[in-house]
């Protein structure tokens, strides 16, 4: 019998329609890790809502969580779509899935602005350096010099999704690799518990159009050049006990999220402080020079920044979309007051002296 989690669900309860992505596509691995993370965290699929734009990556949400609502919107507009929808029921957790074309090309503006608004949303960029669904043109994240058979050599500097997120003021910025399921899953869990927008830029190879081993978004290159910042572990609030084992300073960092869950970072090369935005930028910048794929939790801001729901002052006791006429339509007396006080009135007897 299939293993069930604490809320009695099996992994199958988190699945979606059968995938129609290419065999071996990185996006499929991301889906698996989302499914695994939610299963392990005992999240009810009904408490999740999925959003995406257009692309192979944006089709992906179809292939997970069929018990969740979802909206596969327009190319590049996922952040806006998700913003409008999530406001309607803040008890739901949003997952947005997008591609490098979808986010860094046509959707760049919305990406930047959803960051500013700090919308509580797990924002996954399934990044393969190409436009998969339209057959392999260069995406803006493609490395300069990448040569593709049908499209020649890319002459432009790449957009770095993480650098953009940092510059734009994101409160959670991570990079991962579809070929590193353990790390990816831990990051998804942490993102899920983050109290604001969490960007995870995942190198997710397109096996059909951009998987030559010399290409930075290939499985080969990424595997050979991955440089994790740390080993990551996510511990949900109810398991905090696990942290009781003795810790030696410098070996680990413990980051406490707003809901009491914890991210444990075990140092790899050096101690890295993911609460220092500036250190994150430097680490990224260095990674370009060293030509490595830096992965891990680059940056997290756990307090101080309101999320969009807080800014909007939304009620916590009742979702907006369940409010009734009584709550939404002011009483007739209000209109009378407006008519009486805010509007200028015509002839009155006094003035006309009658």
């Amino acid at each position, binding site marked *: 019998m299939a293993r069930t989690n604490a809320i009695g669900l099996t992994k199958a309860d988190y699945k979606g*329609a059968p995938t129609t992505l290419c065999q071996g596509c990185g996006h499929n691995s991301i889906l698996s890790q989302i499914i695994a993370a939610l299963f392990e965290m005992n999240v*009810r699929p*009904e*408490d999740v809502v*999925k959003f995406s734009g257009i692309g192979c990556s944006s089709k992906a*949400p*179809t292939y997970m969580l*069929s*018990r*969740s*609502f*979802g*909206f*596969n*919107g*327009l190319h590049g*507009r996922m952040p*806006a*779509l*998700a*913003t*409008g*929808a*999530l*406001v*309607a*029921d803040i*008890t739901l957790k949003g997952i947005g899935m997008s591609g490098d074309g979808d986010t860094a090309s046509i959707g760049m*503006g*919305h990406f*930047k*602005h959803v960051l500013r*608004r700090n919308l509580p949303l797990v924002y996954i960029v399934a990044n393969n350096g190409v436009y998969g669904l339209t057959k392999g043109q260069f995406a803006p994240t493609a490395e300069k010099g990448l040569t593709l058979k049908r499209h020649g050599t890319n002459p432009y500097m790449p957009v770095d999704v993480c650098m953009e997120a940092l510059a734009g003021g994101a409160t959670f910025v991570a990079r991962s690799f579809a070929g590193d399921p353990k790390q990816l899953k831990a990051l998804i869990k942490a993102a899920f518990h983050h109290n604001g927008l969490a960007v995870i830029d995942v190198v997710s190879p397109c096996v059909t159009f951009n998987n030559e081993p010399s290409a930075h978004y290939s499985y080969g290159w990424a595997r050979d050049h991955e440089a994790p910042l740390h080993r990551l572990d996510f511990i949900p609030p109810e398991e905090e006990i696990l942290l009781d084992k003795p810790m030696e300073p410098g070996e680990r960092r413990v980051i406490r999220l707003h809901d009491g869950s914890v991210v444990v970072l075990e140092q790899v090369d050096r101690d890295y402080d993911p609460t220092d935005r500036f250190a994150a930028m430097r680490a990224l910048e260095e990674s370009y020079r060293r030509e490595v794929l830096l992965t891990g939790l680059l940056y997290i801001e756990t307090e101080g920044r309101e999320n969009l729901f807080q800014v909007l*002052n*939304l*009620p916590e006791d009742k*979702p*907006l*979309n*369940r*409010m009734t*006429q009584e*709550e*939404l*339509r*002011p009483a*007739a007396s*209000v*209109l009378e007051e*407006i*008519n009486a006080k805010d*509007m*200028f*009135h*015509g*002839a*009155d007897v006094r*003035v*006309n002296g*009658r």
Partner: protein
Amino acid sequence: MALKPAPEPASAPAAREVVNDFSITVATINGTGSQTSNLTILRALFRMGIPVSGKNIFPSNIQGLPTWYTIRVNKHGFLARRDEHEIVIAMNPATVHDDMNKVVPGGVFLYADHIRPQGLREDVIAYSMPVNRLARESGAPPRLRDYVANMVYVGVLAYLLGIDLEAIRAALDFHFRGKAKAVELNDSVVRAAFRWAEEHLEKRDPYRVAPMEATQGLILSDGNTAAALGALFGGVQFVSWYPITPSTDLAETLEHYLRRYRVRPDGKHTFAVIQAEDELAAINMAIGAGWAGLRAMTATSGPGLSLMTEAIGLAYYAEVPVVVWDVQRVGPSTGLPTRTQQGDILFIHFASHGDTEHILLFPANINEAFEFGWRAFDIAERLQAPVFVMSDLDLGMNHWMGQPFAYPDQDMDRGKVLWEEDLERWEQEKGVPWGRYLDVDGDGIPYRTVMGNRRPGASYFTRGTGHDEYARYTEDPEVWHRMVHRIKKKYRLGRKYLPRPVEDGPGTEVGIIAYGTTDAAMPEARYLLEHKGIATDYLRIRALPFHDEVGDFLARHRAVYVVEANRDGQMAMLLRMHYPQWATRIHSVARTDGLPLTATFIADSIAGQEG
């Protein structure tokens, strides 16, 4: 709003007294605060019981350019724009000669003495006002001087026309919301100017006002405020917008009222307003919200609408309720951002690639702006479709008389939404498993669930790509065909939810069709036509797609003139398209120059064609 027209012609010969029938135009510089003075005049006249309208002709600019405010005073309630200016108040040196040339022969030219027109026209009655001196003497602090200067012409005009000083005082009270100091200062300037005029001016012109009872029980408002209030009482929950003239005020006023009346005692909001990064975001946010079960809207104008095109197609095909206010300005392109037009009809009706035929509502006055403000949500949710409310700058930003706003006479219609329990019941009743796009009622309208409904089977995956009745992705040709025809059926049968046309007329053989703000000129235009011996029937379209009454009206008339403020006669084109059997009797009376149509233009065009 028009009263029963009296038999005499609209403007009387200059020789005798002209009472309550003329237009006043104030020529000033934008950014100098003349709006307060102009509104004061408008309101005072209104308070005196005289029908008035006020139109601001302003530049797309913040400070320093010419701007004009025209008040039409008309005892019959003919309140459309006219080309004739009986009284011109000139405060702007840059345009003084043009302004003087605007005055009708025998009219009044009232000017600030410091702007010194070179040579006055012989055929106008000119008065000069020592505006700066009176402003200085007002004792107003220097930074308010410019502003106070504008109150001078209010006082002088009050003297010349006989405007009730108490009515002016009432207007100031209202404007400054009782702030005594401000009221006092302005009032004293008005009175001083009045006194000065009394002492120094010899009235030589025929124009004056006299109290009436024609505005009793009425209010003055602009259409954007009315629309915002309508949305408020429509229970709007989500507003995403991006600033653009002339729709900006609508969104800002709405937010203002939401913060006033839709905050719970615990401080929590029952709404969300987001100023988006652009119109693409604004419409996609609103679609997300509408999809998630909120009453969602955006307000914009031409360029913003154009940017929303792709998302409009998504809302159409994925069947998401959303309300879009288009406060039309002059296009194509950036055009004239501060002028009015009815130019987006064809574009929006067919907006986005593929077959579409969107729902458009046409409010003609502030009361309809209010009404469609709430009703648009009922329609959008009932039909699960985007609904476009086609206001325009003239309605949105100008000042109109109207009835006090009427509380909605119907409960909110949230349409076919199924929550947890509903779904249970539904499946039992209908005997089929629920599917998002199943047409079980035969009206083309499926049932929808919304995000947050936790019942098993309630969720579905929405997309703008091909899908079947269960919202599953498919490229099956038959399914595509079936779905788009089901949607077409929904629109056809759904017309019954849209505001019906309004008709008026004795039953003659000549018909006139108009819509939106062009209505304002119709009573006068028809009156003028009647005096030319052409009796007319009138039908005002209030929604697209057309109701059957429109076809019936065409059928009943030998000739039908379609009046509209655009270049191509867009509604006439649509009518021809939809009513081939009556196509040849449809004549277009269309013009666009950024200004509201005049009754004279309409009457002359129709008379010319009736020939």
